[in-house]
């Protein structure tokens, strides 16, 4: 039974970028959520939703290798180029990094720091800064920028490395409405032009769900994980219980029922 399940969820390389196989996330060996299985394919738009403390950031950090999984595994394409935009940057302001220095740093991956940078890297950095609308602050100290500008600089750093999958943890939380829409447009362009998969944790449910192909709903309180298309998630009873009145979509529009991956407790 277990073998069948792994075979069914095991990613097929060259078609899939990243797979999560019965992954249990948590801290110090204590599971926070039931096992999660999902596959991220090129050009897909994923959104991870849930209430505060539902385990969204923990799940993201476990996929990225920043936290050890309690059980299960994360399968990655060996050629996978990951970019990550954290919820809050932990960048120290001691050494004066300018926006351009930070974006240039985004070119390094693996052991590439041992080699001289490729010709034309400055143009790539400039293009990334211009794309996120922060080229005017290129020479400003990162620490002197507003939180919204900092997030756009970090987005430029994520883009400059030409990622195959980009993980974003509430990327627009400090941005004004124009910057939010610009960011979503940039991510959509990236997806369409470079087949970059986008996995985003967000609280902006309506815009996120209307812009996403697939969704992962997490609820640590009730021990519920639901993974599937946006329509499937919208039809999930726990999701409906918490967020039903907050999204523009109506569950009755869904074509199929929710794909329940696991549950720890009774549903509400």
């Amino acid at each position, binding site marked *: 039974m277990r073998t069948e399940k792994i075979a069914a969820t095991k990613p097929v390389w060259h078609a899939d970028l990243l797979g999560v196989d019965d992954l249990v996330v948590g801290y110090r060996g204590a599971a926070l959520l039931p096992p999660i299985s999902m596959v991220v394919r090129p050009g897909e738009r994923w959104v991870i939703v849930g209430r505060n403390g539902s385990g969204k950031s923990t799940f993201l950090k476990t996929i990225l290798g920043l936290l050890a999984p309690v059980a299960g595994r994360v399968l990655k394409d060996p050629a996978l180029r*990951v*970019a*990550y935009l954290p919820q809050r940057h932990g960048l*120290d302001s001691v050494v004066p990094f300018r926006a351009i220095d930070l974006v240039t*740093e985004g070119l390094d*991956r*693996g052991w590439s720091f041992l080699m001289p940078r490729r010709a034309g890297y400055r143009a790539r950095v400039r293009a990334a800064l211009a794309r996120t609308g922060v080229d005017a602050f290129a020479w400003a100290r990162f620490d002197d920028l507003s939180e919204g500008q900092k997030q756009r600089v970090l987005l430029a750093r994520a883009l400059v490395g030409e990622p195959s999958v980009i993980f974003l943890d509430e990327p627009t939380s400090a941005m004004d409405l124009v910057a939010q829409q610009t960011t979503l447009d940039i991510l959509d362009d990236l997806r369409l032009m470079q087949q970059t998969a986008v996995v985003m944790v967000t609280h902006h449910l309506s815009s996120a769900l209307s812009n996403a192909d697939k969704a992962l709903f997490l609820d640590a309180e009730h021990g519920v994980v639901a993974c599937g298309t946006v329509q499937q998630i919208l039809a999930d009873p726990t999701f409906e219980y918490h967020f039903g009145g907050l999204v523009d979509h109506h569950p009755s529009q869904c074509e199929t029922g929710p794909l329940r991956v696991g549950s720890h407790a009774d549903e509400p």
Partner: protein
Amino acid sequence: MNLETTASWDLFWSSWALFRDPLLVAAIAGTVLGYLGVFIVLRRMVFVAAALSQSAGCGVAFAFFAQIHWRVSATVAEPRVWSLLLTLLVAHALRGSFHRLITREGLLAVIYVMGAAGALMLGTRISQEAHDIQSILFGTGVMVSPADLRWVALTGLVIGTWQLWWRRGFLFASFDPQGARVRGLPVAMLDITLLMTVAVFVSVATHALGALPVFALSVAPALAAVVVSNSPLITSVLAATFGMIAAVGGYLWAFWGAFPVGASQTCLAGLTVLAALVWRTGCRWIRQVLRSEQDPALKYSA
């Protein structure tokens, strides 16, 4: 006053052969320690440098003690080797799992006081080498041996080259370890390498200059550079330059003022921070004055 100064210059140049090696050691050690200091400051491990330099001093004192009281041959109880061993041991302990039992700063404090107390206690039992112990702890020595020059030059060249080669990795892993890990940089390897290179050079430099100036040179020039500069590259260049100026200038200051060398170098390194703060505050004040002088009426009348 002028006559006295001229006489001092004459004396200095006539004894150039005597002063050349110490000045070369000061220049190399000051440059490399200043450069390494940027990472020490960036990683907020300022007192790691203090603990390492004191441990290196204790290692040297132990080697002398073993030679004199246990009749261990100078080859086995080589001060540089014991200084290096103790420094690497401390560096390893700082990376270990003690932080689950004791806070990092608590561990650093224990290592620092044990290193200093150990060197002083051993020093009282080796009166023949008491001056050397003083030199190692406080950098009071005016002369350096040709072997010291060779060691400082060789390790300075190797570590300096290594640091420049791996610079981007060290900087990324120090500034944003989480981002570096996500991008597949070998963060653990970079951490170990950085700490070990700092430990090795601090150990070698402590034997030549003394623990106090080595601690000062590995922290103060970098702090000064951080205050006045605007980019990581300029910070590194300025820190190395300030380090060299403090080490060489401190030696010359000690010569003319008849001060202990280590104290002069330490004091000058501290003064670079003060000068940087004055410079930065002055620049900010001038900018504010210029801005306030722009009369809005004049600004829009054109």
